[in-house]
């Protein structure tokens, strides 16, 4: 995976040398632009590794963003952020309760909640966009910098650092992969499989909400279409990064690289001056080559 990442990076660095691809601004742009995707990708590593999926991700982004922006019109920014995150966690927990208490597949539960949440997002503001003018909020979650590094990069990388620790170095992380690998074995081994599932879905809701808040900070406002295109990008980033779609194996660092790789592709192909149709084709081809080189499974005898 790392090889594919370097390959694409080196390729663009050479081809687009004169088009500003390697300029610091542009590289920071890529990190900034991918931050919300990276945050969601980290949580999705946990969800997929546990053998679950969260299709409601994109809708939660929109609803949390709108709730945050709306609450901020009349209340304190901290309260608005708490409300946005609370909505996300709440939806995640509800997803988790349906999956664990009624033993329903998360694919169907979150397919249903995806629709409900998308509908709610549309009703919250009656399809109107809300502007956010709170400078502190915008600074923390959007355009602000920490030294020379964009604040958004900190959120993204912070999520990766926490995620990596949680996934690789805690018992919870071990229980997540064991649950996705063989839920029966995990249960017999005394792992509270239902709690693991509930936790990863709640985590996913929280990450989607944070992504929504980051979008709100970055765009200085929220609208109901935010996040609508994110679900597949997030899943692609995670799977490219070496996480199994069906549970049992995952990589947080891989997800970061996957997210950056996809962001880099979009960015590089625009700088190259391709038309949008050419961009789509080139994106697909490069992706296919990169994953063929790195992700193919060796044939077993």
């Amino acid at each position, binding site marked *: 995976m790392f090889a594919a990442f370097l390959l694409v990076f080196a390729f663009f660095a050479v081809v687009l040398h004169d088009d500003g*691809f390697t300029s610091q601004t*542009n590289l920071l742009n890529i990190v900034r632009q991918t931050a919300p995707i990276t945050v969601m990708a980290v949580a999705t590593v946990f969800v997929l590794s546990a053998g679950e999926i969260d299709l409601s991700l994109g809708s939660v982004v929109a609803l949390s963003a709108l709730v945050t922006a709306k609450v901020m019109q009349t209340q304190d920014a901290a309260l608005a952020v708490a409300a946005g995150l609370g909505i996300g966690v709440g939806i995640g927990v509800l997803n988790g309760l349906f999956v664990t208490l009624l033993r329903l597949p998360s694919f169907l539960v979150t397919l249903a909640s995806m629709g409900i949440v998308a509908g709610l997002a549309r009703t919250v503001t009656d*399809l*109107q966009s*809300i502007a956010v003018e709170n400078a502190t909020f915008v600074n923390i979650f959007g355009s602000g910098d920490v030294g020379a590094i964009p604040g958004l990069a900190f959120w993204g990388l912070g999520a990766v650092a926490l995620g990596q620790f949680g996934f690789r170095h805690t018992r919870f992380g071990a229980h997540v992969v064991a649950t996705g690998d063989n839920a029966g074995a995990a249960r017999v081994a005394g792992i509270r499989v239902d709690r693991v599932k509930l936790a990863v879905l709640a985590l996913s809701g929280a990450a989607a909400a944070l992504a929504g808040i980051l979008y709100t900070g970055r765009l200085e406002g929220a609208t109901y279409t935010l996040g*609508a*295109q994110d679900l597949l990008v997030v899943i692609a980033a995670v799977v490219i990064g070496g996480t199994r779609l069906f549970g049992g194996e995952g990589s947080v660092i891989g997800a970061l690289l996957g997210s950056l790789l996809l962001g880099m592709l979009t960015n590089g192909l625009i700088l190259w*001056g391709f038309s949008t149709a050419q961009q789509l084709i080139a994106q697909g081809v490069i992706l296919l080559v990169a994953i063929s080189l790195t992700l193919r499974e060796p044939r077993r005898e």
Partner: protein
Amino acid sequence: MAVAVASCSSNEGASEGSLPIKSSRAVGATRGPHGERAIPTSALDLSPAEVAKVRSGHYTAALVWHEESDFTTAVTAGVRDVFDQLGIRLVAQTSANFDPAKQKSDLETVEAKKPSVLLSLPIDPVITASAYKAIAGQGTKVVLLSIVPQGMRPGRDYVDMITDDLFEMGKRAADALAAAVGDKGKVGYFFRDANSFVANQRDQAFLKTITANYPNVKVVARQGIADPNRSEELANAALTKNPDLDGVYVTFSEPPGEGVLAALHSTGNTKTKVVSLDLSEPMALDMAKGGPTFALIADRTYELGRAMATSAGYGLIGKRAPPFLVAPALTITKSNLVQGYRASLHRAPPASVTKALGQ
């Protein structure tokens, strides 16, 4: 009856004088986002000396679109043709698929190439405003299509804003629908139920014109369309409630107009005439086959692109452009369908349409 009227008209293209649809009194006018008076795009003009001045600058340009469709393709074609004359090189082109976050990223990415001009249709007037301000602050000349980001002022932050002659389009839709129902009958009004500068003005113009100028045409059903993708369901419900409508106005053709058409087809309704805005292949095809679609009101999309590119030239040499420009509207019926396609999108109609017309 309507079809018969249309077919006996001469076939001399998009010039509307030949159509049996009469033009009623204007009861309003298109206004810019800051209340500006609309100036026709034909007012834009660069002298040979000015063209040479632009050419000598070897400028670069970026196109940041909201989506990809027939519409953006035709605008882009108009832009490219004028850019060729002005010696402006297109260095980046993006499409955001209606995702404002993607559009903001696109703007940032494009900014790294430091284009001399940016031509764009902002998806959202509110939440991408900061990105447009940033790129304008960098010295890039901004030419806008249809939407002005909040807080941006013409002349200071952008060269000008170009859009359709919105009032004229709505008015023409009213004139066409009145002709379709023989100036008398019950009609439905399917309007855009969301904050949209373009759709709201067109819808209002239709409503004002039909009520003021056609007292015998009654708007008996109103249906707001908040989610264009659900138009067919909405249309089904509205048509079930009002099965005896003589005609309907639909805010734009793709997808709501197509949804209404599908609803009519599925209920076997051949009586209700449809008038909608913008060209769409399914509706043009229906019109060619003599279906319920009576007229489509279109803009000169290619002309929008030409005007944007010309405005870019204005910006680059510091020539003051009118802040708000509109491209003329077209009424397209079966009789001038081929010419209408050329005038609007600068291309031939789709093969299916040509075939249905027997050409």
